[in-house]
């Protein structure tokens, strides 16, 4: 079966690389450029997995994650949080708001793909 994956990141070049990877796996790919778009897409398209950038203008990834966990309809959406901030406090915060997994940028494409496959299994 084909999974639906949402990529939410404000850096266009990172989106390009993530999109390429997800499509290569055969997933259906959606793209959101900021937090608000991401939340709308999650509620509308019900993706199985979200690759969520923590630092986005307006609504941050943390906010989105919180909103998803609080919304009964989309609560079970799996979330992989990506962040360019490597501080421990950021990791803790990401787990705190309910992310299923957490990866720091720059990431290894293999590790990322493995994690995505695991999460969708």
């Amino acid at each position, binding site marked *: 079966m084909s999974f639906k994956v949402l990529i939410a990141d404000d850096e266009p*070049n*990172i989106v390009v690389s993530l999109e390429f990877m997800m499509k290569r796996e055969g997933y259906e790919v959606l793209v959101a450029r900021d937090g608000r778009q991401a939340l709308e897409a999650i509620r509308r398209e019900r993706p199985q997995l979200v690759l969520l950038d923590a630092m986005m203008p307006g609504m941050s990834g943390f906010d989105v994650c919180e909103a998803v966990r609080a919304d009964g309809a989309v609560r079970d959406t799996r979330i992989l949080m990506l962040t360019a901030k490597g501080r421990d406090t950021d990791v803790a915060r990401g787990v705190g708001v309910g992310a299923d997994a957490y990866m720091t940028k720059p990431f290894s494409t293999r590790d990322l793909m493995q994690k995505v496959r695991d999460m969708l299994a």
Partner: protein
Amino acid sequence: MIAASLVLGVSFGYLLLLFAIAAFGDRRAALGRSVIDNAWIYALSLAVYCTAWTYFGSVGRAAGSGVWFLPIYLGPMLAMLLAWVVVRKMIRIAQTYRITSIADFLASRYGKSPLLAALVTLITVVGIVPYIALQLKAISAGYHVLTTGQQAPGLPVIAWWQDGTLLVALALAAFTIIFGTRHLDSAERHEGMVAAIAFESIVKLVAFLSVGAFVTWGLFDGMADIWSRGQTFPELRALLRLGGESGAASFGYAQWFALTLLSMLSVLLLPRQFQMMVVECVDEQHLRRAAWVFPAYLLLINVFVLPIAIGGQVIFGPGRMDAETFVLSLPLAHGAPALALFAYVGGLSAATGMLIVETIAVSTMVCNDLVMPSLLRLSGFGGRAGGDLTQQLLNIRRCAILAVLLLGYLYFHLAGEAYALVSIGLISFAAVAQFAPALLVGMYWRGGTRAGALGGLLGGFALWAYTLMLPSVAKSGWIPVKFVAHGPFGIELLAPERLFGLNGLDNLTHSLFWSLLINVGLYIGLSLWRGPSAREASQALLFVDVFERGRASGQAAPVFWRGRARLEDLTMLASRLLGANRARQLFEEHAREIGVADVRNLLADARLVDRVERQLTGAVGSASARVLVASVVQEEPLAIDDVIEILDEASQLRGYARALEDKSRSLELATAELRGANEQLQSLDHLKDDFMSSVTHELRTPLTSIRALSELMLDAPDMEVDQREEFLRIVVSESERLSRLVNQVLDLAKIESGHAEWHNTDVDMAKLVANAVRAASGLFRERGAAVELSLPDQVPLIRADPDRLTQVMLNLLSNAAKFVPAEAGKVGVVLRTDGDGLVVEVRDNGPGVPLAEQATVFEKFRQGGDAQNRPPGTGLGLPICRQIVDHFGGRMWLESESGEGACFAFRLPLRPAEDQETP
């Protein structure tokens, strides 16, 4: 005429009312809810100054000499102006050292001298007894007028046991004994008595005003009517002018001054005034109100004096009736017996008020300063003898009260008719005025000595007796008048009323002049001649510096005592004189204050001895207390050096305390500074942390793309060429972004830390701006934007680094190029002089900067626009620009309305401040 039984009945009824009020006051005091803790009551109690002498005598004096009754009241009004300075100090001294009489005040000031106390008491008794007689006479005369409608004849014709005056005197003695000596209070305060006196002050004021109103508006048509009818009598016309018959030119200024001064001193020094103003004062703050209420009271009670005096003479005919009884005879003769009776009660209240307070004050002095010292000399009464003395002390005081009142009664009988009321009053005033130099100067001058005070008092008193008392006695017919007229043995130079040929003064002014001159002269002279002893010096210090050294100042007062004492001795002494209960309270209080749990563990040190002595002072006077304490302890005699040493110790202690305070204050200050510095460091650290976190984020973002795309290409060698090309292009541009970022972070760090290099030369901004626009023209051409350059022909050179300014210009221009709409962009560049500076503006027609972002646009990593459409940038360009402009002493700002384009501008001063000129 009024029936004698009615007058007597009303009089005693009134006295019973006084008893009731006093009993009420005492009961309230016992419950701890003082009725006299009130500035109004305090002010009213001071009006005990107005005696029967005021009540009847003022009218008499006004009838005889016009406005000459006034100085007696002007003096007190003037004195009250000084109340806050002088009286407050007296109160503070008296309450700090538990002084309960004027004799004690003087004795204590001059080394607790028993001799001085006795002398003052003697002067008081001699000076005051006639005054007491005068009050009794007023009561008697008033009674006579009321019951017979006529002036009193010489002496009461009835037997003494039927004499109402004696009964009144005895009733007052009973009152005074009950409310004045109920217990041996170390503060010597009598709340019930004060309440009764305040009540009496109201009664006499209302009564006098009623009579005044009755005369002015009942018998005449107002004051103007009285004046105009008075004018028809040649005798009365003179009364309405200042200088009497011969006009204002002959006005006795000296006499007026003397009378005012005399009454000014009296209001401070008369025993009853001292008792009310100082001893009975509950709270020195009450003085503030009393300072105007009391003078207002005096003003009120004097309003009708002249109208009654003139009106009475108009009605009865000048000189036909004794003016001193006008207050009674006028209503009586015009069908208002009830008012006459009320007026009599008013007079009675004036007299009884004075009698009660004066008797308490004088009997306290007699007991403490005449009887006690004699008793202390008897064996079996000294400090080491046993037995509770409180009851004996109270009995002595009761006897003294009875004796003083009976002495007054006796004097009234012997000399009652001899002299007019007013004269006796002034003679008393002049006697107590002798206390003034030693007391008033002694409060402010440390140099005054016991010898000076004794000499001054003796000299002044002797002259008073010779020049004032003796002639008055002579005029009473007891010694030949020839003596007054021609001097003793016919020596004119020694004539009592023209001493050493001093003519032209009335006898009072004359006496006051000589007695005070000798008094002050001896006081100052003797004080200067030989310095004070140790005890005199220490007491002088305690008095003069009471506000600085007193207990209330919160600092440890020096205790001028050295020696050894045993706790048992002190306990026993205190119990004997204060009673066991109050003695125990005293020691327990002391233990609590110095933090000793068990009274038996108290150390009998100087401080405790001082405390016991003070308490005893309240009970028996300072001189007797000194003798008693000295008899149970082993004292080392103090020398003047010891006094200085003790004083040094005290001030050293104060010095230590102050130094400690200073230290702890500076420590606090240092702590606050450190805390501030720490906070600053923490916030700097926080800023740095934030900056590092932002830099990390900005570095990792391009790295992420580079790594991901490279890995993807590595994993897929068979990738389509187009795809690979796109990926490689991204990798290159992200690498560029990375190196740009690294450069700018380093640049900014250098500028901020002050390590940047500045190569300043004279810069022509017009040329520089034109060059920059030319260099950026490629960017604009790419975006299809038009640039409009507006330069003045010539601008002043400025001193700056041209490379840095070019950097600023290029940054602003490239920002403009990024944000203008494609193919429709318009960029305006303007250079202009502005006062003593140059302004450069770069204006675009892009989307502008939203208001919310304008404040942060110059902060690091705050890139404008949304991420998607945002042209590449690091978010450090504007912060660097601003740092550069700031470095040259200039300023950079943004003007923008969203949708209307943005205008970044900066201004550089032509003459930068010196410190900007750093390499």
